[in-house]
């Protein structure tokens, strides 16, 4: 052992983090330290798994490889993408929003019943979005100002929203409004005989805005900071209260928007729509590599998470022969595979 290293700090010592650096590990180290939330790596794992899953489908079913099958993942899940984006904001602060599925239902019911009464579609849209935002804001205020637990506040919000649905209308109401049906039925033609819906466009715009807000604004930084250590964030002089209330309002807005997209997709309003959809959204966010404890995760991950869930769904529908229980079991197993792989591949991080 030579001891030529004289100056302090420049010794060829094992680096504190990952000393045995092969090329792969150097790349790994780079990934682990890039950017906010340090979650780039988990997102890449998700992306990889998505490709594998889709590839498996292509091998198994001959029509699975058509481009439109991939695009349909977006078309069928536009509403869920928007929901997951809102959920990501909340989860990044270490909170959770269980009300989003119920708010989706409430949005469809409000929209359908008002349209049935002959209200103008734009007005209805504004009203629905305002309702969702307001509900989210109220929940955020309860979480922050009353120091109640998010799980509970939003659970109460969920009961409230469902309750309101029933009060407005129990049976399902069809939507026949021209603007809605027009938006629903017209598609954006793409080359190669494929298409996307306007709903997808809206969802992707929402994702883009969310990415910008989270990574390029102080508000976004505050969201991550709160998730990292709320108390520290407060002591550092960040606007913790305002930000916390805002993320729930954002989630409420996204749920309402998701509800509108869902009503475009399904052209009806019903109090029992979207039962358990909040769990889908949460699952998507988690599959996308975001930690439920907050402070770490990327919106793009949530988008991928939704696509993973979508792929699982379409694999099952391609199979066709599955009974409803095998469907449930398959979804459970695939979810399991995902979280386990995700967990094992990111395990060494701490």
């Amino acid at each position: 052992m030579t001891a030529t290293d004289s100056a302090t700090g420049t010794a060829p010592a094992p680096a504190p983090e990952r000393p045995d650096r092969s090329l792969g590990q150097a790349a790994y180290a780079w990934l682990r330290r890039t950017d906010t939330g340090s979650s780039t790596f988990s997102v890449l794992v998700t992306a990889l798994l998505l490709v594998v899953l889709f590839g498996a489908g292509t091998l198994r079913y001959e029509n699975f490889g058509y481009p439109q099958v991939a695009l349909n993942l977006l078309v069928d899940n536009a509403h869920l993408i928007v929901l997951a984006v809102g959920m990501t904001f909340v989860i990044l602060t270490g909170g959770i929003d269980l009300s989003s599925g119920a708010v989706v239902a409430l949005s469809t019911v409000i929209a359908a019943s008002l349209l049935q009464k002959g209200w103008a579609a734009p007005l209805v849209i504004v009203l629905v979005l305002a309702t969702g935002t307001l509900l989210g804001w109220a929940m955020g205020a309860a979480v922050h100002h009353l120091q109640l637990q998010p799980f509970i506040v939003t659970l109460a919000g969920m009961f409230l929203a469902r309750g309101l649905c029933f009060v407005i209308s129990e049976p399902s109401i069809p939507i026949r409004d021209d603007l809605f049906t027009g938006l629903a039925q017209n598609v954006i033609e793409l080359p190669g005989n494929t298409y996307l819906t306007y709903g997808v466009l809206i969802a992707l715009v929402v994702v883009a805005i969310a990415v910008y807000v989270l990574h390029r604004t102080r508000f976004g930084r505050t969201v991550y900071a709160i998730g990292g250590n709320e108390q520290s964030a407060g002591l550092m002089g960040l606007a913790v209260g305002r930000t916390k209330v805002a993320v729930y309002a954002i989630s409420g807005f996204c749920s309402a928007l998701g509800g509108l997209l869902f009503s475009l997709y399904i052209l009806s309003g019903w109090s029992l729509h979207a039962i358990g959809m909040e769990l889908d959204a949460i699952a998507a966010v988690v599959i996308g590599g975001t930690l439920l404890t907050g402070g770490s995760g990327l919106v793009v991950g949530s988008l991928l998470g939704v696509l993973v869930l979508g792929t699982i769904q379409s694999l099952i529908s391609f199979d066709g022969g599955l009974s409803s229980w095998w469907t449930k079991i398959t979804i459970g197993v695939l979810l399991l595979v995902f979280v386990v792989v995700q967990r094992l591949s990111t395990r060494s991080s701490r």
Partner: protein
Amino acid sequence: MSTAAPRPAAAPVVEMSGITIEFPGVRALDGVGLRLFPGEVHALMGENGAGKSTLIKALTGVYRYDSGTVTVDGVEQQFATPADAQAAGISTVYQEVNLCPNLTVTENVVLGREPRKRGSIDRRASRERTRRVLAELNLDLDPGSILGRHPIALQQLVAIARAVDTDAKVLVLDEPTSSLDAGEVAELFRVVRTLRDRGVAILFVSHFLDQVYEISDRMTVLRNGRLVAEHRTAELPRLQLVQEMIGRELSTLEHLEREPAHEAPADAVPRLRARGLGRTGAIAPTDLDVHAGRVTGLAGLLGSGRTELTRLLFGADRASSGTVEVDGRPVKLRTPRTAIAEGIAFCSEDRKGEGVVGDLTVRDNVLLALQARRGWLRRIPTKQGDELVAKYIKALDIRPAHPDALIRNLSGGNQQKVLLARWLLTEPRLLLLDEPTRGIDIGAKAQIQALVSQLASEGMSVVFVSAELEEVLRISDRITVLRDHRTVADVDGSTATLDSVVDLIASGGDRA
């Protein structure tokens, strides 16, 4: 009536008077005043639990006070939030590291005041600015690395960097040096002096008298939540300061000077023998012998692997190489439980994250390790538990002396004592102490050092880790010097001098 220190020319930037804060059951501050002058370093002195941190939190809008006034630049203020205080030019580093571990160093430094370009955060400028402050503190840190991956001490330096990176007129530093070693302290003081000369008023808290005397111009002494006096540092003899802080003659501190003299037969089987013990990325394979009745000190700079080595000895992290023998028997230290079963105890340096269980009472915290060893079925009988707890509260002078107080409401130093009690209760044969005196006031520090000496003379083996070299030297029979994640020397505690150890740390012990 020594409150009348000579009036300086300038008016105070901050003047607090009559501040009273009551917590349920405790009056933490009782009519306390404090004046901070521009261009002066002001030391806030007092024992653990005297109310220093509370006073700082009252100033910076974390706590609302029940009565009293705060004026800043002659205008009366009651800050509602830390943000308000910041906006008024008061920049603060709180006692425990208060940053976001999930963000990068850069993000933490500029958080809340990011440079912006056309409305969005300018990352390049952020990075540049961070580089600049880090360089100012002579910190060699990758600005893009995640903060939480760095040791506590570096995190503390980043917190300081963040505080320095403002044009604040008041800078408050609550025990910034508790986990730093001499080099970093020097860098910090250099920056502090620069700021002082720029006219910034600095409030500084530390339990290290040397540091306080080196840097401060003025002192305020608190005791039990009350103001004792304000002095000019130059006019206050140390002895008087200590007396004012602890309210009595300083007899316990005699221990400070006592040389340890633990006899240990050199040929005996060591209580613990580690051979080639290491962990990839944390510490290179290391040999270490710890004898019965001896104190083994680990010396080294920040990040030299002191903590990592101690953790391996306790099974807190798993070793990737090497063997450990206890009393000549090979053992596998896979988990803390196996180590505890071998009679090993470990006080972590990360008191908040790895020590206190905040929701539980002092009593439950003290009894935790013993209870865990007995297993859940054999609950420690209430009476026996009460007696044990009472005994240790008394022995270690834990304040407030309520077994049923929630530990999270205790001051930092007192929490540390509770953790010590937790391990002493298990009557370990090998006690691993990682920074046991961090954030502890001088009276208590002397107590703890005396306690360690006493335990060793009763036959316990102790591994003692501290950033404060003098302390390691004073207390250890044998000193292992670490550098860059490996041991570089092993010296006799009685012959080693501060200079010789510093030399070893710096040069890396060329005798390898």
